[in-house]
């Protein structure tokens, strides 16, 4: 099974930029109404564990927060590999660098261009790491924050966002014919505040088979993933 975890992938944008590969056989919006704040780490931890983890993850130390494999659906797979997954295998150094540049931008110490360069460089690194794992484990999960990171500073700039969505769609295209179960999932969507982007409740999911889900919560994927592990990879 392949899970493409795409931070801030927004249903409206997927449709706007006509990302045909991201819109698999079944796709739609996720229901995030049981979360007070749409925080990246809390949402991914909840996705992995099937439980709303919002209250258990303090804002200040969220980036270092980790769940154990036993708490997650990963334990149902004999072999798995994850790339840069928040609350699990986040590449601390890369993300610390990104956050430093983001802060720098707001303090007039860094430019958007410098920030974008770092985001794209880290994305390329993750992409390489992730595609090395595809086909070699029962479950591979790769996390990519391109839409979130670029979106926060440039969501209102259509050319930039088109480039981001095009890139993510190409990644989905590459794994399309892998003869595996493919879940594309985002933690939340994004809406424009002028040129900037703010987290929205318009999250996205898609699956390359019919799951029959309707407005699933981010915690609702735990059971179907478990079923797939037990039926297909046991």
């Amino acid at each position, binding site marked *: 099974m392949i899970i493409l975890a795409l931070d801030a992938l927004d249903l409206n944008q997927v449709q706007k930029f006509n990302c045909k590969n991201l819109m698999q056989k079944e796709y739609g919006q996720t229901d995030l109404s049981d979360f007070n704040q749409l925080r*990246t*780490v809390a949402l991914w931890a909840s996705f992995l564990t099937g439980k709303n983890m919002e209250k258990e993850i303090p*804002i200040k130390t969220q980036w270092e927060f980790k769940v154990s494999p036993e708490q997650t659906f990963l334990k149902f797979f004999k072999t798995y590999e994850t790339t840069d997954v928040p609350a699990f295998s986040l590449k601390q150094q890369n993300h610390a660098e990104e956050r430093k540049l983001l802060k720098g931008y707001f303090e007039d110490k860094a430019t958007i261009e410098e920030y974008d360069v770092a985001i794209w460089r880290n994305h390329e690194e993750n992409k390489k790491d992730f595609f090395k794992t595809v086909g070699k484990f029962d479950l591979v999960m790769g996390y990519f924050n391109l839409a979130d990171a670029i979106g926060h500073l440039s969501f209102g700039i259509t050319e930039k966002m088109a480039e981001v969505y095009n890139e993510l769609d190409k990644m989905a295209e590459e794994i399309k014919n892998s003869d595996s179960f493919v879940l594309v999932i985002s933690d939340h969507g994004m809406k424009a*505040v002028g040129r*900037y982007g703010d987290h929205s409740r318009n999250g996205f999911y898609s699956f390359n088979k019919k799951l029959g889900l309707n407005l699933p919560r981010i915690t609702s994927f735990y059971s179907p993933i478990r079923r797939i592990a037990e039926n297909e990879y046991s």
Partner: protein
Amino acid sequence: MDNYLQQLEKKSIAMIREAKAQFKNPAVLWSTGKDSTATVWLCKKAFFGKVPFPVIHIDTSYKFPEIYEFRNKIAKEWNLNLIIAKNEKALEKGVSPEKGRLKCCTELKTEALKNLIKERKFDALILAIRRDEHGIRAKERYYSPRDENFRWNYKDQQAELWDLYVKPSEDFTHMRVHPILHWTELEVWQYVVQEKLPVNPLYFAKNGKRYRSLGCMPCTVPIPSTASTIDEIVQEIKTSKIPERAGRSQDKEKAYMMQKLRSLGYM
């Protein structure tokens, strides 16, 4: 045949007269910057030398001394009915940029204006915003209704065809009227030259730097420039690739987003 600036001026003057005719109690906002000074001048021209409604200056108390000096001089020379909007209560409470730029802007600018509108019952405000200033301003209409919280729903705006500016039927607290929305920064400067308008000295380069957009002292930085006359400024703008508001760090969207990202734990 009118020159291009005369055409721009005609359209703006028509809009100002329309606003005066359509609304009971309009006023014009004046920051003393080039755009709003040109707009006040247009109001003056539209009514043959006398601006027939109040001119509002929002005083955050953090403005440059040159701004206050310029304001008082021109208000006297042009015989303006100047009203100063100041949120004294917030200033007493110690609101300042150091304690949060977004709060500072909201309290000292937005709230100050809200209070004044309520007190004086203004139903239309003439503002000197331009579409080329900023991405979000490109979405503005000439007539832009605001509710009591100053909210602007840019996704639900009426079309303004054939220069018809119709008041919307829904309730709104006040209408914003934007007579120079279609002008560019360059055209404003060319108009300043043509009309021989007074210019705030902050716009001219001193020691290799000048202000291209005027705001409050703590949140405005000068840009590198050697343009010390209006002609040199015009030449500079013709070739510059730096956005006009690059020196304005108190951009509300930016401040809002910084606060938001901080609350989400990104910073």
